[in-house]
């Protein structure tokens, strides 16, 4: 089990006041909230600061944690000393959601009250529907263009045969339909958390995150690309072959094209009820004047073409 440096995680010091801890927590929570922070792994730091704050905001837990001593480092292998928590009592009134805390936390402070204990509270049977689970799933542009199947592994908490809360990996093969777009959520009914007692399973929501593509930029169903062309293709016009995902399109470069000129290829974007378009922006690349021959041609252009691109600046 790894030691967790809760002070470090919350960016506070051992001598920080409760107010300072609270302020720092709020600030970090805003920064790393998975709905605000677009990084696919923002969920991890957010959980970690939540766990750190659960300990440090509570004076009882904080002083118990402080008792472990100062010589531990984040990530160091850790075993709690025997009876380390004698004289402290912890309660979990504030944890309504079944958040998963680290092994480190649960070894020190135990598990929250969401397991079997909640079942027969006050002699009455307790039933609750399972939690909805949320996860982000990173896919490539090709995945949404063709559709695909993704294997995802989620850490799911559930009850074992003895009724104890436990976390186990849960592997699912999920069909990613053609044409899903960034930010969309896929709902998998009944694939969320298990119920307590009689109830129904929660749902699983997968949010699509599109990995950046080497060539294409994506906005909803439209895709954008830059097309390098030569000066003579731009000046004289040409027909060039452009690979756009599954298709190779023959694209007409009109004469007198300039860098920045945009061409729309209707329906060549992502598939859908109304397919997206592909926007191609020309970018003129001039060849290097590396040989005498090339230099001669450039000098000839300079002398024969009366051209001043900066005329408008005057």
């Amino acid at each position, binding site marked *: 089990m790894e030691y967790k440096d809760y002070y470090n995680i919350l960016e506070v010091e051992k001598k920080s006041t409760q107010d300072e801890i609270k302020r720092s927590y709020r600030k970090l929570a805003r920064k790393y909230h998975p*709905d605000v922070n677009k990084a696919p792994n923002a969920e991890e730091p957010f959980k970690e600061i939540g766990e750190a704050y659960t300990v440090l905001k509570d004076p009882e837990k904080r002083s118990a944690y402080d008792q472990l001593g100062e010589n531990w480092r984040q990530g160091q292998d850790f075993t709690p000393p025997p009876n380390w928590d004698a004289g402290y009592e912890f309660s979990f009134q504030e944890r309504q959601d079944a958040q998963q805390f680290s092994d480190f936390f649960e070894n020190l402070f135990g598990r929250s009250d969401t397991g079997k204990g909640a079942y027969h509270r006050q002699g009455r049977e307790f039933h609750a*529907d399972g939690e909805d689970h949320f996860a982000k799933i990173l896919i490539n542009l090709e995945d949404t263009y063709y559709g695909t199947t993704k294997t995802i592994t989620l850490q799911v908490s559930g009850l074992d045969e003895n009724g104890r809360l436990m976390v186990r990996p849960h592997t*699912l*093969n*999920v069909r990613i339909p053609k044409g899903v777009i960034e930010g969309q959520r896929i709902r998998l009914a009944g*694939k969320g958390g298990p119920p307590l007692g009689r109830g129904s399973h929660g749902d*699983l929501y997968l949010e699509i995150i599109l990995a950046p593509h080497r060539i294409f930029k994506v906005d909803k169903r439209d895709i954008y690309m830059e097309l390098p062309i030569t000066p003579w293709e731009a000046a004289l016009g040409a027909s060039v072959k452009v690979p756009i995902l599954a298709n190779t399109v023959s694209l007409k470069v009109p004469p007198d094209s300039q860098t920045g000129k945009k061409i729309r290829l209707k329906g060549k974007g992502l598939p859908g009820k109304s397919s997206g378009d592909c926007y191609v922006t020309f970018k003129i690349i001039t060849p290097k004047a590396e040989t005498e021959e090339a230099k001669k041609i450039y000098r000839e252009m300079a002398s024969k073409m009366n051209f001043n691109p900066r005329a408008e600046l005057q």
Partner: protein
Amino acid sequence: MKDIINVISGEILDEDIIVSVKELCRMCKINHEIVIEMIEEGIIAPKRNEKIHWQFQGVEIKRIQIALRLKRDLHINTPGVALVLDLLDEIENLRSQK
């Protein structure tokens, strides 16, 4: 092993999926009052505005879920959440224009 072999399909919560207010409440685990509050603050908008036949596009489910999580995790009130969601939309637009 069964899970690993089977491929499961879900539904994409896009504009084409239409849910009733009852389904919306069930999916998001909220009651009618919260739906009304969110409509009043402009967080979500029903597709048809007759109260009995309220219908919502699938994308609203995501907005409600984000709103609920922001309220819970960051202690933001409903008008504040509406502002955050608008700003998030704007950031997304700016990003895609880059």
